[in-house]
C-alpha cells in the first residue's frame, strides 16, 4: 500500500513553506528614538516600525523599569508601486510610537521590542540612552532628526523625491506655536498643568514681550475659578487678550495630545535692563462635571527675561517708552483763522510700541499764540498680540494778535529694536495766518487772551478777557536806585545849618563883646542907643495919656543929651542946657529943636488934650534931634 496521502501533504507543506519563507524574510522590524541623550524631565519618542508584518503579527513593546511610557499610538501605511509590466508591489508599514520618560539618570538601556508571528519571534536591537538629571536641550540636528523613512526602500517611490508641501509651514506658523516649543510636561501633573510662556527671552528696554498663560489638559474642565497673575516687577504691562470663556484647542506636546485653554495674554514692556523675573501664576481649576468634578490648584512655571539696555549713541532724553516703530504727524484744523477763533492742533504719534506710556513731543508755538494744555486720547489696536495704535494730543491754540506765525517742526526720536538703530520721526512746519475778525477787532498788543467759550453767540463776538501774562515793556526809563530824601547827603547838613548859623552869630557877638573896650565913648553910644530905644517905647504911648507920652519922650531926649554931652542935664534950665549945647558945638538949629521938643513936652504934660498930630510931630522932632548927631 502506497502512502500517497502523506506524500501530498508533505508536498503541500513544503510549497507553503517556500511561499512563506520569502514573506517572513522581507519583514523589517526595528526601533529608534528621536534622541539618545535626554533629561529626566524630558519626554522622548520611541518608534517601533514593522514593514510588511504578517496579519497575525504581535508586537510586544519594551517595558523597562527605568522608563515610563506616557502614551502609545499605532499607525499603518500601505503603498502600492507599479513598475513596468510586472505585478504591483504592495508594502505595508506599521508604526508604533511610544512617548517615554526616564525615571532616573544614568546610562539606561531600552530593551528590544519583540515581534511574534506564526510561532516565530524577532527582536529589535536594544537602544542605549544617556539620561541626565533635569532638562537637556536637544541638539538641533538631533531634535530635528526624524525616524528612518519606512519608505526609504522605495526606489523612486511616490513620496521619495516629492517636495514636502508643508516644508515652509514652520516659518509661517504663528507666534503662539513657537511659544509652545518651550512647554515642558511636569512630572506628576501631566494631565492638567498650567504653563506661562513668553515670545522672546531677550529684548531691549521698552521692547514688547508677550506673556501667555495656558491650561494644558487631558481631562475635561468645568471652570477656572481664580487666576493669580504673576508679579511683573520692572515691566509696564497691557492686557492683550483676556477670554471670558474657556475655548479649547487641540495641541500635541511632545507627541502627547492636549487640549489647551488660554487664560490671559499680556504685553510686557520692560522699563529697566537686567534679568527680570516673571513669577509663577496660579489658578484654581475645576475638572469633571457636576458631582463628579473636583477642584485642583495649579502653579505655572516662573520665567526670566533678559533685558538689554538701549545701545549708546542715542538722542538725549530717549525714554524706555520711545522704543518701537513710530510715525509722527501734525494736524491743524485750519491754517487761516480770524482773531479770537480757536485752532485745534493734533500731534499724532502712531505706531507699534508702548502706546499708553509714550509721550508725543510738546507743541511749541510763537509767543503771540497761546496754547492751552492738551487733551490726550489713545487708541490701541493689538495686531497679533503686538501692541500698536495711536496717541493723539489735541491742543487748543488761540492767537493773541494778527499776523502769520509758524508752528515749528516736531521731532520724535525713538529706538527701533528691529533694526537696532535710533530713528527720528518728524513733522513739517505749519504756517498759521491770523486775520482781523469780521467785526473789525484789531489785534491787542496787551496780550489779551481770548476766553474759550462755548456759547455760540459769544464765539461770534470774539470775547477777549484780560488774563494771561502781559508782555515786556519796550521802553525803559533808567534810574538809579532812588534813595529816600533823608538818606541823601545834603539832607542832614541842610537841616543843621540854621542851628549852626544861629550859634555862629551868637558866638561872633560874644567874641566881639569881649574883645571891644568899654570906653566912655562906647558907653555914651550905648546910652544914646538906649535913649533911641526909649523913644521907640514912647511911640507905643501915642494913643495913651498925654503925661505918660510926653514924659517918656522928654526922658528919652534928656537921656540922649546926657549921653552926648557926657554930663547930666536933668534939672538944668533951658538956658543952661542951651549953653551946654553951645559949648559942645551943637549948631543953632539942633539947639532950637531941642528946646522946642522939651518945651512941647512940658506943655503936653501939663496941658492935656493935645492932638494926635502934635504928638506925631513931637516924635518926629525928637527923632530928628537924635539923628545925625555923630556927623
Amino acid at each position, binding site marked *: 500500500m502506497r502512502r500517497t496521502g502523506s506524500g501530498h501533504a508533505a508536498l503541500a507543506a513544503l510549497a507553503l513553506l517556500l511561499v512563506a519563507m520569502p514573506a517572513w524574510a522581507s519583514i523589517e522590524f526595528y526601533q529608534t528614538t528621536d534622541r539618545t541623550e535626554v533629561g529626566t524631565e524630558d519626554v522622548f519618542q520611541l518608534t517601533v516600525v514593522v514593514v510588511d508584518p504578517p496579519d497575525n503579527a504581535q508586537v510586544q513593546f519594551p517595558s523597562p523599569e527605568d522608563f515610563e511610557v506616557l502614551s502609545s499610538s499605532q499607525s499603518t501605511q500601505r503603498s502600492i508601486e507599479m513598475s513596468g509590466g510586472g505585478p504591483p508591489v504592495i508594502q505595508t508599514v506599521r508604526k508604533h510610537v511610544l512617548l517615554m520618560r526616564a525615571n532616573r539618570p544614568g546610562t539606561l538601556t531600552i530593551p528590544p521590542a519583540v515581534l511574534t508571528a506564526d510561532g516565530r519571534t524577532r527582536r529589535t536591537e536594544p537602544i542605549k540612552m544617556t539620561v541626565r538629571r533635569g532638562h537637556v536641550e536637544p541638539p538641533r540636528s538631533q531634535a530635528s532628526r526624524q525616524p528612518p523613512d519606512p519608505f526609504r526602500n522605495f526606489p523612486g517611490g511616490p513620496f521619495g523625491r516629492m517636495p514636502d508641501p508643508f516644508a515652509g509651514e514652520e516659518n509661517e506658523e504663528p507666534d503662539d506655536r513657537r511659544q509652545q516649543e518651550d512647554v515642558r510636561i511636569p512630572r506628576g501633573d501631566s494631565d492638567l498643568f498650567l504653563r506661562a510662556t513668553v515670545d522672546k527671552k531677550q529684548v531691549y528696554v521698552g521692547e514688547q514681550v508677550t506673556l501667555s498663560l495656558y491650561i494644558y489638559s487631558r481631562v475635561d474642565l468645568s471652570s477656572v475659578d481664580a487666576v493669580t497673575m504673576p508679579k511683573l516687577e520692572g515691566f509696564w504691562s497691557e492686557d492683550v487678550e483676556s477670554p471670558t470663556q474657556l475655548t479649547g484647542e487641540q495641541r500635541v506636546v511632545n507627541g502627547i495630545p492636549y487640549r489647551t485653554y488660554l487664560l490671559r495674554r499680556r504685553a510686557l514692556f520692560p522699563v529697566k535692563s537686567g534679568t527680570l523675573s516673571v513669577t509663577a501664576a496660579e489658578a484654581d481649576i475645576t475638572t469633571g462635571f457636576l458631582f463628579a468634578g473636583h477642584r485642583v490648584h495649579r502653579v505655572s512655571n516662573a520665567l526670566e527675561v533678559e533685558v538689554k539696555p538701549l545701545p549708546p549713541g542715542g538722542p538725549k532724553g530717549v525714554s524706555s517708552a520711545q522704543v518701537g516703530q513710530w510715525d509722527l504727524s501734525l494736524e491743524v484744523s485750519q491754517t487761516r483763522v480770524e482773531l479770537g477763533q480757536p485752532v485745534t492742533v493734533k500731534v499724532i504719534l502712531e505706531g507699534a510700541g508702548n502706546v499708553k506710556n509714550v509721550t508725543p513731543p510738546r507743541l511749541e508755538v510763537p509767543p503771540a499764540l497761546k496754547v492751552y494744555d492738551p487733551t490726550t486720547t489713545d487708541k490701541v489696536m493689538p495686531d497679533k498680540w503686538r501692541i500698536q495704535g495711536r496717541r493723539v494730543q489735541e491742543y487748543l491754540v488761540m492767537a493773541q494778535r494778527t499776523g502769520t506765525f509758524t508752528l515749528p517742526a516736531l521731532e520724535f526720536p525713538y529706538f527701533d529694536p528691529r533694526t537696532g538703530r535710533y530713528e527720528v520721526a518728524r513733522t513739517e512746519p505749519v504756517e498759521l495766518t491770523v486775520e482781523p475778525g469780521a467785526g473789525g477787532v484789531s489785534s491787542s498788543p496787551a496780550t489779551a487772551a481770548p476766553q474759550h467759550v462755548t456759547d455760540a453767540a459769544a464765539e461770534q463776538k470774539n470775547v477777549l478777557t484780560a488774563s494771561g*501774562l*502781559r508782555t515786556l*515793556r519796550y521802553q*525803559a526809563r533808567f534810574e538809579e536806585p*532812588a534813595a529816600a530824601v533823608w538818606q541823601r547827603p545834603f539832607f542832614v547838613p541842610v537841616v543843621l545849618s*540854621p542851628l549852626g548859623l*544861629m550859634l555862629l552869630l551868637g558866638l561872633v557877638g560874644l567874641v566881639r563883646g569881649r574883645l571891644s573896650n568899654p570906653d566912655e565913648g562906647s558907653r555914651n553910644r550905648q546910652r544914646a542907643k538906649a535913649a533911641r530905644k526909649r523913644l*521907640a517905647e514912647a511911640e507905643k504911648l501915642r494913643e495913651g495919656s498925654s503925661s505918660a507920652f510926653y514924659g517918656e519922650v522928654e526922658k528919652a531926649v534928656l537921656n540922649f543929651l546926657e549921653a552926648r554931652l557926657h554930663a547930666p542935664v536933668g534939672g538944668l534950665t533951658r538956658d543952661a542946657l542951651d549953653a551946654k549945647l553951645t559949648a559942645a558945638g551943637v549948631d543953632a538949629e539942633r539947639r532950637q529943636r531941642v528946646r522946642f521938643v522939651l518945651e512941647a513936652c512940658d506943655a503936653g504934660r501939663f496941658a492935656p488934650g493935645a492932638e494926635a498930630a502934635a504928638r506925631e510931630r513931637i516924635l518926629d522932632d525928637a527923632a530928628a534931634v537924635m539923628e545925625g548927631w555923630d556927623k
Partner: protein
Amino acid sequence: MSAITAILVATLLGQAYYSPEEAQLLFQQANESYLKQDYAAAREGYEKLLSRGFGGPDIHYNLGTTYLSQGDLGRAVLAFERSRRAGGEGPDLDANMSMARAQQLDKVVGAAPEEPFVQRVVSATSGNLVAWLFLGTWLAGFAFLLLFRVLRPGNRAWAAVVGVLLLAASVPSGALLAAHVWVHETLHEAVVLAPTLRAREFPKEDAKVAFEVHPGLKVRVMEETGRYVRIRLPNGLEGWAEREGVAEI
C-alpha cells in the same frame, strides 16, 4: 541778529560802564532774547543792566516777567515788588503780579493783627513828601527869624510870627519824618525764594519746624541772628528761617 551786533553786545557786556545808548541797546537785546524764548539770555541782560546801576521800574518789571515765564515764582515776585518800590505802576505790572500771586503755593489764612499806629501812619504817608515838608518849614522858619533880626523895629513883628509858626509846623513833620526813618531802618520786607523754606520755632537747626513757606510769598523780616532771620507772615505767624531762603525787596 547780525554778527556785528553780537560782537557789539558781547563787547558791551564786558564793559564796566555803559552809556545810556549802550544801555538801551542791551535792553532791546534782552527783549529780543525774551521774544525768542531765550529766557536765560534775557534775564542775564536785565541783571547786567541792574548791576551797572541802570535800574528803574521798567527793568525790574521785565526781569520779573522773564522769571515768571521761566516759572521762577520767587524771583518773579521779588522783581515785581522791586519795580513797585522803584515807583513802577501800571496795569501790566498789576496783572503780572496778580498772576504770580495766583500761582503761589501758600495760602495765608487768617486776619493780620492790627499794625501799630506809627506803622499805619507811615504806610499812609509818603516819606519823601514828609521829608521835603519838614525841610521846607524848618528852613523857612529860621529864615523868617533872621529876617526879623535884620528888619528895623516897628514893622518886623510879622516876620517873627511867621517864623515861629513855620518852626511850629516843622515839629509834627519832623516827628513824622522820624517815624519814617525808624520804620525804614527797622522794618524789612522780603520774598521767599527757596523751594521749601522751613520756619522753626528757634534759630537752631534742630528746633521744631513751625511751618513751611514756598516761593513768591511776601514776608516781613523782623530781626536777624546768625544765619537765621525771624520772618512774619501777613497773618502774624512768625518763625525763624534761613537767611538764604529769602531776598529783601
